[in-house]
């Protein structure tokens, strides 16, 4: 057991998976010599050589598209797209090609393939580096969408992603890279997909979140506790597959729910959470599920991002309103 930041957990997992399976190949911009702009892939090249840790040209579509070909060839690619915002440059390869290749080949070419990509706000990145675009990938069946919030899960979910026979989009919260720390077992383990995690158990209301928003939800829960409101915090961990049952149970238990995400409101994954709850536990809901999200605007420059993003205070306020609703 060691205490690690998320980025350390990710780095350790990449090392471990490359040792475990020599088909695992890391590719992406600046992943080799530099070890990644956030050093997620540091020292990999020294250990595994430049044919397994490959600096790619600046071209996202061929990073994703050649990863597809590598997987079809029998390798296990772990591609990095430097920021989730730049998956758009390779969107057709990820959403139309990678997601459907098993399907389109009737199982002949399953893709054991992971695309890692950092995202999310709050760390003063330039334009297009912070966007939370996860919902766009949920509308791409065939892909799994994984959003770890803790160092423990970053390791367990990344190991699972690399070993999973299906393609996985693995989104890493920039804000969590160095700020989120936790206990991480040294031994091998995986965290299965499709199982939400109860990050905090409460009885009055359920706050649903994923990725960096989980920390925010926990912060809000602490503040709410001081005000006498006892909140469950449910970390979805994977959006696809969605833990439909775990979600419904956690919300049915309290009858009230707030969902938090960094993406804009309209058609964000929060909408799916509400729609699912409404379908699964309509009669348990004592108040409308509140959504605390960014507004329907592009991500602004850093000088105003704190007002743009959901905050602990906004989660607290929305939760109090939800709890007080009769």
């Amino acid at each position, binding site marked *: 057991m060691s205490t690690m930041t998320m980025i350390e957990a990710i780095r350790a997992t990449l090392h471990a998976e490359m040792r475990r399976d020599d088909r695992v*190949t890391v590719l992406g911009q600046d992943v080799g010599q530099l070890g990644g702009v956030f050093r997620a892939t540091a020292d990999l090249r020294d250990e595994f050589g*430049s*044919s397994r840790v*490959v*600096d*790619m*040209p600046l*071209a996202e*579509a*061929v990073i*994703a*598209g*050649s*990863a*597809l*070909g*590598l*997987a*079809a*060839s*029998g*390798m296990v*690619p772990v591609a990095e797209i430097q920021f989730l915002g730049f998956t758009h440059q390779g969107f*057709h*390869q990820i959403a*139309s*090609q990678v997601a459907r*290749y*098993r*399907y*389109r*080949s*009737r*199982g*002949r*070419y*399953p893709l054991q393939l992971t695309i890692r990509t950092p995202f999310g706000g709050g760390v003063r990145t330039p334009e297009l580096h912070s966007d939370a675009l996860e919902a766009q990938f949920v509308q791409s*069946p*065939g892909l*799994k969408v994984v959003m770890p919030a803790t160092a423990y899960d970053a390791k367990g979910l990344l190991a699972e992603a690399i070993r*999973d*026979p*299906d393609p996985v989009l693995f989104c890493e919260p920039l804000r969590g890279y160095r700020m989120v720390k936790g206990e991480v077992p040294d031994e091998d383990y995986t965290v299965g997909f*499709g199982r939400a995690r109860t990050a905090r158990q409460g009885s009055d209301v359920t706050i649903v979140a994923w990725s960096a928003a989980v920390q925010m939800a926990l912060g809000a829960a602490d503040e709410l506790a001081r005000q006498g409101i006892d909140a469950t915090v449910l970390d979805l961990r994977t959006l*696809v*597959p*969605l*833990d*439909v*049952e775990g979600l419904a149970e956690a919300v049915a238990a309290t009858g009230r729910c707030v969902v938090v995400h960094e993406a804009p409101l309209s058609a964000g994954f929060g909408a799916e959470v509400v729609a699912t709850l409404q379908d699964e536990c309509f009669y348990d809901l004592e108040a409308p599920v509140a959504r605390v999200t960014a507004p329907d605007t592009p991500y602004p420059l850093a000088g105003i991002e704190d007002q743009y993003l959901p905050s602990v205070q906004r989660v607290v306020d929305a939760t109090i309103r939800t709890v007080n609703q009769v």
Partner: protein
Amino acid sequence: MTSEAPSEVPHVTSGTPLRLMGDDGGSPDPQRIRLDEDGQLAVLRQMMLSRAVDQRAVSLQRQGRFGTLSTVTGQEASVTASAMALERGRDWLVPQYRELPGMMYHGYPLEHFFLYFMGNMAGAGVPDEARVLPIQIALAAQIPHAVGLAWGRQLQGHDEVVIVYFGDGASSEGDFHEACNLAGILGAPVIFFLQDNGWAISTPRRMQSAAASFADRAPGYGIAGAVVDGNDALAVHAVTAEAVDRARAGDGPTLIESKTYRLGPHNTADDPTRYVDDAEREEWEARDPIARLQRHLAASGAWDDDLAAEVERDNEAEIERALGVAFETPSPTVDQIFDHVYAADSVRLARQRASLSGGDR
């Protein structure tokens, strides 16, 4: 492998298209021919099978039994002779959607083609022993796949070559550029086989690019380039075989521009009379690649009417067989919608499958 760009690249001429069949039956450069008579006959048979399949498929489409499909008619030499320059069972073929005879040569069953165009996903499958990727509908998206495939097989220590097909139209997509550039950096054993068939639906070649030749793009990626008369089966085969040698020897990728012509409509929903003029079509009809190879073989006595009749009978039999299999294959059921989305259904997907299967419409 990726740390050094190859220093010397063998630049194949990108000027006049290579021809190896003269109009008279002789060859301007017989030394370069890599197919003996049997090999030439094998290519011809495969080309003729392709033409026969086209004709049958179009008539079945008109009867409403097949969906929209694109024929190979006019491009048989380009597709077939190139695909047959690779080793079946060893090398790999990555198609767009107009490469049936090449896919078949490498083991994709004709009945799958029929099923695919009957709208049955069973046709999308590729048998395990066939080294063929699925038909590609999103133009140029297959080119990066081919580079990854070639790269991955090489990383695993195999000396296999990948050929990827795409059109003059598809060559305008960013995927073409990104893939060629990566292949150049990696020195990957891949052949970019660009079929310039004159048109991308209604868009003529001259409006697709101002480049004098598509092969002129090769130096911009540090890879070899070649231009070939795509209706000359022997030239197509030779140029591709040379590219295979180069790739196999570790000398990296080649971009081959095959100048050919789409003799029919773009697909069965298209009406080319809206944009092609008769003179152009007639000019290319006179260069029909099948008739041309037949003339070449007939000149040396290797081809005659009897043989033609025999090949036609064989082709008919093969088509009947494959159609039989296709029509006997059960219509798709709801499970076809859900199978192979993931290795296993999620809770949600299992519910959706049950709901759609259970008549709970």
